């Protein structure tokens, strides 16, 4: 019974305390509000609070910025990866196209060269496409898509803008085989263009040609042009064969050995021109031989 008044006193005390605290806080807040509205002061407590909160915000902002930057970078990385794939595809496509264009341009240049060569000739050459090559050392031959049906006969010569290609050795109805001038079995009457000195140009396979029977006292130097001599009636005179690459003057013997690099790149032959002008002569030569 005695405790009840005590409790009542205590509770009334706390209630008074609560109300007084609430009122005092509200009073302070009201003062703050009025002070800030009319005075606009940002006092020491405010400054301390802001100084306390500032580093926290700064830390979180930095961390969040770092995380966001990482996230953005990561997302960007995905985009970059996708973009990279797309661009790689485009690069591949463009490289393929570029290859085609280069090939087209190269073909254009080549065909232009061929056309120019064809127009220069006083004969009407037969254009033949190289359809096969025989890379063996001893049989340097090519197969072209012209044959008997195109009046191609054995013994006819084949030319290219760079010079002599070779001679037709076998013919079929629609195709013929040409022995290249650089075949070891080939021998052409040739001469050094600058001094008209003659010799025999023999094929040396991949090394090109070797010019034989040129005397040691003859002035020959690297870069001199070698052309057909026109002897024997197979090749007309003056067709380019190549240029002197190396000159060997041995102690013994009366001749010097001259290496000639071909004017025609046999590895890259695509078209050749078969000269039909000597056809009658070849036929004439063939008649007595058959009669014999």
């Amino acid at each position, binding site marked *: 019974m005695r405790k009840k008044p005590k409790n009542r006193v205590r509770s009334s005390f706390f209630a008074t305390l609560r109300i007084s*605290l609430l009122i005092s806080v509200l009073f302070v*807040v*009201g003062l703050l*509000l009025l002070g*800030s509205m009319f005075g606009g002061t*940002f006092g020491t407590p405010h400054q301390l*609070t802001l100084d306390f909160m500032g580093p926290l*915000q700064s830390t*979180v902002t930095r961390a*969040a910025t770092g995380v966001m930057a990482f996230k953005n970078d990561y997302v960007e990385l995905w985009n970059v990866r996708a973009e990279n794939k797309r661009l790689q595809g485009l690069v591949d496509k463009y490289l393929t196209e570029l290859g085609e264009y280069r090939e087209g341009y190269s073909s254009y240049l080549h065909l232009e060269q061929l056309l120019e060569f064809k127009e220069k000739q006083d004969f009407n050459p037969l254009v033949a496409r190289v359809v096969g090559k025989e890379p063996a050392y001893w049989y340097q031959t090519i197969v072209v898509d012209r044959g008997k049906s195109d009046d191609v006969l054995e013994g006819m010569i084949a030319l290219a803008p760079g010079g002599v290609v070779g001679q037709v050795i076998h013919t079929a109805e629609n195709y013929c085989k040409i022995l290249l001038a650089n075949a070891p079995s080939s021998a052409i009457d040739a001469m050094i263009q600058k001094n008209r000195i003659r010799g025999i140009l023999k094929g040396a396979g991949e090394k090109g040609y070797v010019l034989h029977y040129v005397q040691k006292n003859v002035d020959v130097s690297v870069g001199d042009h070698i052309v057909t001599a026109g002897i024997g009636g197979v090749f007309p005179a003056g067709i380019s064969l190549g240029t002197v690459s190396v000159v060997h003057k041995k102690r013994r013997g009366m001749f010097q050995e001259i290496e000639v690099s071909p004017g025609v790149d046999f590895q890259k032959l695509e078209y050749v021109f078969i000269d039909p002008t000597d056809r009658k002569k070849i036929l004439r030569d063939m008649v007595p031989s058959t009669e014999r």
Partner: protein
Amino acid sequence: MLLLSFWVLGIALIVAQTTLLQFFPLWTGRPDFVFILVAFTGYRFAWIPGITLAFALGWVMDVVTGIHLGFYPLLCLLTFTALKVLTSNSPVKESTYQIPLVGGSYYLVQMFFYFVYSLILPEELPEWSWSETTQRTALIVISAVPLFLLFNSLFEYVQKRRMRSKPPRRRQRESL
């Protein structure tokens, strides 16, 4: 201990509200975490720690974000007092009503402060928008659900720790 824990939590929420939430796109909204915490204190805290916490958090928020100092502590204190009075010895205190009541009080506080501002600083007020206020309120209600779970967990954890740390004699006397 309880006051200190919630003060630290409040500071963390203020920091999060003023930093992390700013990185989110506008359409996600930026709920007022401090208001939710003050509402929670209205439900669970006693008068003296509640007023202290509401004022402290309002103060900090005011310093960090306020233009006219005093408005935010006033808002916090009014919210706390209103909810405290409303829920004392009332069935509204039940958890079923807590979240809707947070939304309702937020809506009313918005209207009240708009009214006060319109009297004191009418030139600084944007045009009142029912839809925006409703959206903000909805956001507060949605955010209040997980935050109340968090606050409750922390509250109960701290209470349990406090009970354990009390000497057994005193606890016995209290239980009697």
